[in-house]
């Protein structure tokens, strides 16, 4: 079944999904930890951390990509270290695209998760505590299940953001077919060719359809999480 897509287009869609999933999965633990920290704890520098987490939302993506290139390039401090110790490089690789997408997705993931953590009724946790439950048990049987829909919604939102990532990605890992040419980059690249309107239109519709599906899933999960309250998503 090809659904009318060409082999090249399937490669592009597959790669976009792979990068989106990798970015989402890799960011899930740190995003949750940050959301928990920001929702529950008071500590010096909280405002600063909050701002740093949200920075990718407002900094021009090309700046993020450029910083990634400086840090993770073969000449950069982290890139050189990764190469020397593990023999891996993120530059010009799909893993680099996933890293760029993950950083851009982080603020949206943390936001959604943080709201759902803040919505947990603390009295339920306190009740469990008076009944002698350990903190780990309270977390696993009360807090986590109650926050779960928000976590899933945040993850879907992060995924949706990841498959749309363009600026940081093209700056960091450029455009290599089958490796870093995701949907947005393929659209941009097709725009550079004369008489490519039909190809651009197909890819653009595909991109809208994917984003729409991811967003609607995220909204649906968020609504299920809070049937009476407002959406936890955007």
């Amino acid at each position, binding site marked *: 079944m090809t659904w009318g897509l060409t082999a090249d287009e399937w490669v592009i869609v597959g790669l976009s999904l792979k990068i989106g999933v990798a970015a989402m999965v890799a960011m899930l633990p740190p995003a949750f930890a940050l959301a928990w920290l920001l929702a529950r704890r008071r500590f010096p520098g909280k405002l600063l951390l909050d701002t740093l987490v949200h920075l990718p939302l407002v900094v021009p993506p090309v700046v993020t990509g450029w910083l990634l290139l400086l840090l993770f390039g073969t000449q950069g401090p982290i890139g050189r270290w990764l190469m020397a110790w593990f023999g891996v490089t993120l530059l010009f690789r799909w893993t680099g695209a996933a890293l760029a997408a993950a950083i851009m997705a982080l603020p949206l993931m943390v936001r959604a998760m943080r709201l759902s953590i803040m919505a947990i009724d603390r009295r339920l946790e306190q009740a469990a505590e008076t009944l002698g439950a350990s903190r780990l048990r309270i977390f696993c049987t009360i807090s986590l299940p109650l926050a779960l829909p928000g976590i899933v919604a945040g993850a879907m939102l992060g995924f949706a953001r990841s498959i749309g990532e363009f600026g940081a990605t093209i700056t960091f890992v450029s455009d290599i077919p089958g490796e870093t040419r995701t949907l947005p980059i393929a659209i941009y690249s097709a*725009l550079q060719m004369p008489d490519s309107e039909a190809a651009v239109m197909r890819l653009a519709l595909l991109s809208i359809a994917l984003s729409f599906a991811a967003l609607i899933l995220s909204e649906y999960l968020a609504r299920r999480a809070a049937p009476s309250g407002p959406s936890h998503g955007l």
Partner: protein
Amino acid sequence: MTAFLLRALALLTLSCASISHAVPHDRGPVLLAAASMQEAMTAAADAWAARGHPRPVLSFAGSSALARQIKAGAPADLFLSADEAWMDDVARAGWLAPGSRSTLAGNSLVLVAPRARPVRLRIARGMPISRALGDGRLAMADPDSVPAGKYGKAALTALGAWPQVAAKIVRTDNVRSALALVERGEVPLGIVYATDARASTGVSVVGAFPASSHAPIRYPVARIKGSTSKDAEPFRRFLLSPAGKAILARYGFSTR
């Protein structure tokens, strides 16, 4: 709060109105030019302004983006494209003033390496470019769509080197991004225009591709249909005059 917002809105409206009001007066022609022409056209606009004319308004981007803007009705006066294909595209769509198209300049293609890690390689048929790359990649503008990349692919194909390097190419959205990757030492080799290599202090030229290995690199300039600036045609003529060509030559373009 509402009063404040209303005031801010009023201020914004006023300033917008005054901007749009100010535009028709004393403005030079709007030139949409290929990114590789940035330094040369800035100098040309300065020279034109120094002769007492209103300074042309310059906008630089990839030729593809500019062509699309023109076809979408961008209020511009002149178009300077990095290749004939995009000028043809605009012409076919009926957006060029008849008889205003001329070739302004030419360029050549070079192989560059980071200044810190020079590469010795003689550019010829059967050159061991794959060995020179090693584990590294070759940076060039997208060989399917961006002019510099298309010329580069043609040259590598003519020299029989394309099959060796096709899988090692890093495609960039424009030629200057490829230059930046070489400057930063992220790739051992890159293909850029001779003028780009000349504008950078971070790269050294390994060698030039023979002119016979690719279609001639030409920059056509033309007036856009519907151009309203009375300075558009005089500025176009100035660019094509000996004085204009001398400026282009200073930045490494050929102007024969």
